[in-house]
C-alpha cells in the first residue's frame, strides 16, 4: 500500500510561497489518516458483534426449542434402565450368622372398597363376613351405603382370601399390592427382631417400618435402597438360639418362674450368639403394647435389656477384681468378714444369718460373703469403685442395636455415700440389666479388656480399654471357677467345659418400695471353658421356686444354676467346643531340656 505523504512537496512549496505555515498541512493529513483508521476498526467491531449476536440467538433458540419439546411431550422413563432387586424389595432381609433367614418380605394384597361403584352392597357385606369371620355384616353394609367413596377393608390378605374375594365378583372391591414383613421362624428371637408394620399407606404401595427391636433401631439401614439386596447379618445363631430357648422354657416351667432370660455372648468379640427373653411373642402378629398393668409382665418386655434390677452377688467379683487390680489384696489375703457388719443404721448380714469369720478373698467369692465384699468395697472407696463400674459400662445404656437398649438405662443412685459403696460391692443399691452383667463378665473373660456387645456379625473387633491386668483377670476367672467346684454354684459343673461363674440372688423390689421376701431374681453369670474362656452366659430366672425337695429353694444355686448348666451342656457342642479332657493326676510330664 502506498501511503499518502504527510508533507506533499507541491503543497508545501505552494504554502511557503503564500507565506503560510507548512506544518498545518502535515497536521491536516495526520488527522485524515487517523479518521480512516478509526472507521476501519469500527466496521470490524460491528461485524464481530453481529456474529456474536447470531451465535447467542442460535444458542437460546436451541434451548427454547428443547424446553418446548420437553414441555409438550409425555414424560417416559428411559426403558433401558436396569431393574434389579432393589426395585422389588423395599426392605432388606435379616439373616443369622450362618445366613439362615430370620426376616424377609412377601408380596401380598391389601383389600379396599369403592362403595359407590358397588353393585350390591348387602350381598358383598354378607359374603365378606363369610371370608373374614371377624367382620360384621350390618356394620359393613351401613358403611358401604353411607355415601363414602373409599374405605380400607384389610391390610394383608392370603392368596386364598384374594381368590375368595375375587369370587364375590363385585367391581367395588379392589386390591392394592403390598409387601409385608415375614418372620418364618415364628417366635424365635422375637425380642431381637421386634416387628414391623405399615407406615404411610397408599393404594398402590405402603411403607414398611420397623416398630421395635432391631427392625426399628436399624430402620434406616434396612430401608436403604442401596443396601436392599444385601441382607443384614446378625450375630445370632439360629440353632443355638433354638436350643437355648427350649432349655430355658423347660427350666422356667420346672422352677415355676413366670419369666426368664438368657444371653450367650462371645467373650472376645462381644457378638451376642443368643438372646432369649421369656415369655415371648410372635413378631408376625405382634401384640399391642400394654396400656395397663406392669409393662414387665407383657411378653413384649425384653428382660435381657429392659429388666433393670439389682442383680445381687454376681457383682462381688468386680469388687474382688478391682481390689486385686489396685494391689490392695491378693487372692489369699485374709479379710475380717465377721457378720453382721454395722454401718450407721444399717446392718449388713450374710445369707441365713451365717457368720464366716475371717475369710480369704477367694473364699469371699466362693462362699459369697456379703460382709467380705463390703469390706473390699470400703478398701477401694466410692470414687474408684464408681470409676471402675463405669469403665465396665454399668452406668450407661448398652450399645446393643435394639431400640429398647437406649431406653433401658441402669438405675444408679444420684449420690454415692459409703453405704452405696458397701451395697454396690455385693450387687445391691444399683440396678443393671443382664446384658450389662454379660458385658462386665466378658471383660474379665477377655483377659481384662472390655468388649462392646453387638447383635451384628463382626469382621473386625473394636479395640476395648484395659480395665484389669491379665494376671488379675486370670485370678478372677480361677476364683469364679472355685465358685462352681466348691462354692454356691456346684450344680453348674458341666463335665469337660470347666464352667466358672457366680450366682446372684436378689429380692424383687416392690412397686411402692421395699422388697418381696419370697420373690427373687436369680442370676448366674458364667464363662466357659475356664482355662481359656470363649463364651459368657448370663441366665436370669424371675421369681423361681424349686419345689423338688422337702422345702422350697429360692436361691440362684438351686434354681438358675442347673438351668444354666443344662444350657452349656447342650450349646457348647453346638458351638464346636470340644470337651476338655480332665488331666490325669499321676502322669508325669517329662521335662524338656
Amino acid at each position: 500500500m502506498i501511503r499518502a505523504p504527510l508533507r506533499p512537496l507541491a503543497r508545501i512549496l505552494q504554502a511557503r510561497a503564500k507565506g503560510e505555515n507548512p506544518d498545518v498541512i502535515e497536521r491536516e493529513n495526520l488527522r485524515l489518516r487517523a479518521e480512516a483508521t478509526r472507521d476501519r476498526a469500527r466496521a470490524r467491531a460491528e461485524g464481530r458483534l453481529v456474529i456474536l449476536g447470531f451465535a447467542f440467538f442460535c444458542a437460546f433458540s436451541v434451548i427454547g426449542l428443547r424446553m418446548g419439546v420437553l414441555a409438550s411431550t409425555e414424560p417416559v422413563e428411559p426403558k433401558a434402565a436396569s431393574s434389579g432387586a432393589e426395585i422389588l424389595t423395599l426392605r432388606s432381609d435379616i439373616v443369622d450368622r450362618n445366613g439362615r433367614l430370620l426376616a424377609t418380605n412377601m408380596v401380598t394384597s391389601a383389600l379396599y372398597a369403592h362403595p359407590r361403584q358397588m353393585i350390591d352392597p348387602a350381598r358383598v357385606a354378607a359374603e365378606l363376613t363369610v371370608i373374614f369371620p371377624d367382620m360384621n355384616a350390618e356394620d359393613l353394609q351401613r358403611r358401604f351405603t353411607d355415601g363414602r367413596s373409599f374405605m380400607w377393608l384389610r391390610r394383608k390378605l392370603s392368596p386364598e382370601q384374594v381368590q375368595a374375594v375375587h369370587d364375590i365378583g363385585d367391581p367395588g372391591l379392589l386390591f392394592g399390592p403390598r409387601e409385608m414383613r415375614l418372620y418364618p421362624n415364628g417366635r424365635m428371637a422375637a425380642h431381637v427382631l421386634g416387628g414391623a408394620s405399615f407406615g404411610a399407606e397408599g393404594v398402590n404401595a405402603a411403607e414398611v417400618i420397623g416398630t421395635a427391636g432391631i427392625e426399628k433401631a436399624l430402620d434406616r439401614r434396612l430401608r436403604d435402597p442401596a443396601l436392599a439386596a444385601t441382607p443384614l447379618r446378625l450375630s445370632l445363631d439360629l440353632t443355638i438360639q433354638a436350643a437355648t430357648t427350649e432349655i430355658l422354657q423347660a427350666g422356667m416351667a420346672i422352677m415355676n418362674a413366670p419369666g426368664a432370660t438368657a444371653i450367650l455372648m462371645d467373650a472376645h468379640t462381644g457378638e451376642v450368639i443368643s438372646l432369649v427373653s421369656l415369655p415371648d411373642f410372635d413378631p408376625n402378629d405382634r401384640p399391642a403394647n400394654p396400656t395397663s398393668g406392669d409393662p414387665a409382665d407383657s411378653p413384649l418386655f425384653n428382660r435381657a435389656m429392659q429388666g433393670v434390677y439389682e442383680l445381687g452377688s454376681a457383682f462381688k467379683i468386680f469388687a474382688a477384681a478391682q481390689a486385686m487390680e489396685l494391689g490392695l489384696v491378693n487372692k489369699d489375703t485374709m479379710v475380717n468378714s465377721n457378720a453382721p457388719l454395722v454401718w450407721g443404721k444399717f446392718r449388713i448380714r450374710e445369707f441365713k444369718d451365717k457368720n464366716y469369720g475371717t475369710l480369704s478373698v477367694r473364699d469371699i467369692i466362693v462362699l459369697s460373703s456379703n460382709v467380705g465384699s463390703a469390706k473390699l468395697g470400703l478398701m477401694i472407696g466410692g470414687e474408684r469403685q464408681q470409676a471402675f463400674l463405669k469403665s465396665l459400662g454399668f452406668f450407661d445404656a448398652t450399645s446393643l442395636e435394639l431400640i429398647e437398649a437406649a431406653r433401658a438405662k441402669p438405675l444408679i443412685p444420684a449420690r454415692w455415700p459409703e453405704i452405696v459403696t458397701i451395697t454396690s460391692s455385693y450387687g445391691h443399691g444399683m440396678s443393671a440389666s443382664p446384658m450389662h452383667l454379660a458385658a462386665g463378665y466378658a471383660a474379665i473373660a477377655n483377659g481384662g479388656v472390655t468388649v462392646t456387645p453387638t447383635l451384628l456379625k463382626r469382621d473386625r473387633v473394636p479395640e476395648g480399654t484395659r480395665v484389669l491386668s491379665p494376671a488379675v483377670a486370670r485370678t478372677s476367672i480361677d476364683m469364679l471357677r472355685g465358685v462352681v467346684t466348691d462354692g454356691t454354684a456346684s450344680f453348674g459343673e458341666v463335665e469337660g467345659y470347666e464352667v466358672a461363674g457366680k450366682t446372684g440372688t436378689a429380692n424383687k423390689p416392690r412397686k411402692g418400695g421395699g422388697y418381696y421376701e419370697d420373690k427373687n431374681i436369680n442370676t448366674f453369670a458364667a464363662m466357659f471353658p475356664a482355662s481359656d474362656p470363649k463364651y459368657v452366659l448370663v441366665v436370669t430366672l424371675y421369681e423361681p421356686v424349686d419345689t423338688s425337695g422337702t422345702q422350697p429353694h429360692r436361691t440362684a444355686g438351686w434354681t438358675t444354676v442347673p438351668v444354666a448348666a443344662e444350657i452349656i451342656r447342650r450349646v457348647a457342642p453346638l458351638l464346636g467346643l470340644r470337651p476338655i479332657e480332665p488331666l490325669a493326676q499321676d502322669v508325669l510330664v517329662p521335662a524338656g531340656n
Partner: protein
Amino acid sequence: MRPFLLVFTALTLMALAFWAYRENYATQSALRETQQLQTEVAQLREALTLQKAEWAYLNRPDRLHDLVALNFERLPLLPLEPGQFQAVADLAMPPPPPSMIDRPLDLAPLDVQGILSEEDPL
C-alpha cells in the same frame, strides 16, 4: 462426473435412510424384549423370595423339633452331646479291602505273550 456424484449421493442417502429405519425398529423391539425380560426377572425374583421364605418356614427349629420327635422310631436323633467329640485316631476305619485272590495260587509257570521293552515304562 457431476451427475455421477449426484446419483451416488442420492443412493447413499437412501441406503442410510433405510439403515436408520431398520435400526429404529430393531432398537424398539430390543427395548420391548428387555422390558419383558425384566418383568420376568422381577417375577422370578419374587417367586424366589417366596420360596426362600417357605424353605425357612419349613425348616424352622420348632417344626424340625416336632418332626424329629414324630419320627423318633425311624431316625433316633438326639441332641448333640459333648461325648460325641472323638479323636481322629478313635474313628473306625473302613476294613481293609477283601483280598482279590481267595483260592490258593496256582504256581504253575505262566505263558506270557508280548515283548519286554527295554525302555522304562514309567
